[in-house]
């Protein structure tokens, strides 16, 4: 069966969408148009079909080389990129900071230039510093760069898989109320999701301790100009109010070191005020989805029963993550609008 037939040209408002400019890098969703997001989500659907086959292998990226360059620990993102590349028949090489020349003091830029010189097509990078993928994108002219999470800045593939997961369940993203709860200040997942959901016409509400919100979102006036996010989100620190009528509730991971850094009086108080629980979910829309980007601290930002309850899509998020990454690897390498069976 050829998959190319199952990928339809996206139509918005009845008009054919012009062929998008081929994208070279995926750094964040802030530079994605709505049409381009729709295209990725459509392509993800086809990729998910491939993942459902008995033999999960298509030759689409045969002869292409993908390097995953991870400077931070990761389970799901890394394995998911590796699986995505391998299902598409790319050669996937995994590199991590430990055991590489980074330990001998090689700079990120020189590591990138070295990898490029080996004829690699795509670098998937995760780095603890915001903007690390941009540094590679600025200086490497022959490879595509995919951001697999940079510092506090962005995690675009996570956001795309979240968009896909919600769309898959609820049909459309337009007009939905998406609530993101927790440490927004330090969350790259939150930042990319704000761009993504807002571009798709959903309403994004943030809730959490005021100390863990970006300061410019906490002030309506004062000496800080308002953030680009200010026009895209609402902030309501009272979770019981914020959760009312939410279609989707996404709990963010709470790094336990935030308490020691003074952002929180105690985990106990955080749990009391911002843990997403069954009781609180009763205020949301009936059947509202529960999401978490992982890894979870069950019993802290989300109650155990909710994490594994009927409305949780946390495992589907992981499955969809592979499909979304296949779609992106495919589109960056081959170009938009074609199917994986070529």
């Amino acid at each position, binding site marked *: 069966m050829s998959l190319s037939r199952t990928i339809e040209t996206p139509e918005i408002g009845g008009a054919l969408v012009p062929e998008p400019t081929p994208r070279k890098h995926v750094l964040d969703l802030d530079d994605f148009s709505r049409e381009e997001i729709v295209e990725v989500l459509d392509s993800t659907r086809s990729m998910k079909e491939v993942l459902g086959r008995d033999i999960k292998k298509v030759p689409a990226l045969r002869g292409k080389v993908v390097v995953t360059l991870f400077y931070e620990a990761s389970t799901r993102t890394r394995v998911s990129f590796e699986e995505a590349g391998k299902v598409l028949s790319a050669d996937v090489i995994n590199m991590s900071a430990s055991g590489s020349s980074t330990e001998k003091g090689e700079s*990120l830029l020189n590591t990138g230039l070295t990898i490029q010189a080996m004829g690699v097509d795509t670098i998937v990078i995760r780095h603890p510093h915001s903007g690390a993928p941009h540094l590679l994108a600025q200086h490497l002219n022959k490879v595509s760069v995919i951001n697999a999470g940079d510092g506090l800045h962005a995690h675009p593939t996570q956001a795309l898989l979240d968009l896909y997961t919600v769309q898959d369940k609820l049909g459309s993203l337009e007009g939905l109320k998406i609530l993101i709860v927790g440490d927004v200040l330090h969350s790259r997942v939150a930042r990319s999701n704000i761009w993504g959901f807002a571009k798709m016409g959903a309403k994004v509400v943030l809730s959490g301790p005021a100390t863990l919100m970006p300061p410019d979102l906490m002030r309506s006036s004062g000496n800080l100009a308002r953030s680009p996010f200010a026009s895209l989100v609402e902030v309501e620190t009272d979770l019981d109010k914020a959760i009312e009528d939410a279609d989707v509730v996404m709990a963010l991971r709470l790094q336990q070191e935030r308490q020691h850094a003074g952002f929180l009086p105690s985990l106990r108080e955080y749990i009391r005020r911002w843990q997403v629980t069954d009781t609180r979910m009763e205020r949301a829309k009936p059947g509202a989805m529960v999401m978490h980007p992982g890894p979870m601290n069950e019993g802290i930002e989300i109650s155990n029963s909710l994490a594994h309850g009927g409305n949780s899509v946390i495992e589907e998020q992981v499955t969809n993550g592979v499909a979304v990454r296949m779609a992106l690897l495919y589109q960056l390498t081959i170009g938009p609008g074609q199917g994986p069976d070529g």
Partner: protein
Amino acid sequence: METDHIVIRHARIIDPSRQLDRVGDLLMGRGEIIAAGRLGPDRIPDGCRVIDATGLILSPGFIDLHCHLREPGFEYKETIAAGSKAGAKGGFTTLCAMPNTDPPIDNAAVVEYIRQRAREDSLIRILPIGCVTKGRKGHELAEMEELASAGVVAFSDDGDPVYDANLMRLALVYSLDLGLPISNHCQDKSLSCNGVMAEGPVATHLGLDGIPAAAEEAMIARDIALAESTGGRLHVAHLSTAGSVPLLREAKERGLSVTAEVCPHHLTITDQWALGRKGEFATAAGDLAYDTSTKVYPPLRSQRDVETLIAALADGVIDCVATDHAPHDLTSKQVTYQDAAFGISVLETALGSMLQLVHSNKLSLGAMVDRLTTGPAKVLGESYSDLASLQPGTPADVVLFDPDEEWTVDTSEFESKGRNTPLEGTKLKGRVVGTFASGNLVYQSPALKFNDTFVKSDR
């Protein structure tokens, strides 16, 4: 015949030390100013070399209270030789060198080393600034009298604030009889934490740790209180926030001995520049973002801060412009924003940046010259007033500039070893044509031409 004399004719002469602003001539010889004003041919000696400066501005050479020449210790970033050439090209005839060298300038031997290097390598006057504390570590006062005797002009632990309030108090008291100011880098590190750019919308968008304005303002407020209680001389280095201005204004109104400087970049560009589009608004970060040449301490801030600082410079609440010239090697900047070194290479763009404010009518030309000459000289004290004057008998430190020449910043033409500036590729209007230090022509642009030597029949 006075063949070593030079006369600059028909320039618009601006000398704030004498409230002089008129078209005229300047005669210099044997390293000194001989006369400035409308000089009749009788006063110009035969054989003297002539520069026709019609349309150009002539003023005392600029004084920079705050620059990093990196020597000794960081010669791969800058040297006194290269920094002095950069200064001359930027119209500066006096540079005050900050002590965050290796070893730091915390004893007479290092001061003497710098003075020796300056005698051998520098085209212009280099005045060292000594440390407040030994090793800039903030634990014990440096031997401030020894440093003063060796020739430092101020004290600073720049790059690091004097963080212990009591030590700052003691430094202000101890330096009272030395008559030298203490220049503090105002930053409360418990508030700036790991910040790499100004707190605000751009930092939020880029996911970079923000530095709140309060990190600067809290430290300035503390230092003003200490200056008041001790009577010491406080100089606030490179202030950057709108909120610092009323603190300073009020301190001056109460008659405290407090002065302040501001950098050209904090008067002309904003945190928006971190997006890598030369300040152009962008909703998407894109691959140009995280332009590490915009990483500087204090950080670039909002347009509102910029406007407030310009107004404060214009009305004199801020005494002077200082460059905080902070040259770096390429590798210190070709890293992530978080890892990049703080600092901008400023000496060669300072005048062009400052003239933007003049061209946009936010600052008068006279005030601009004042803040680059008499302003910093006053901070150094009465004994340095000759460095900012065209009074006959003073050193012939003179800059000649064309306020209207348009040019594009090209760091490959920099004299400084530091090519780190966000202004690379941008257009500036106004450029130095010639710089004289003690009567020597230390920088000459292609536009500077000597006419034939003067003979009386030329009249």
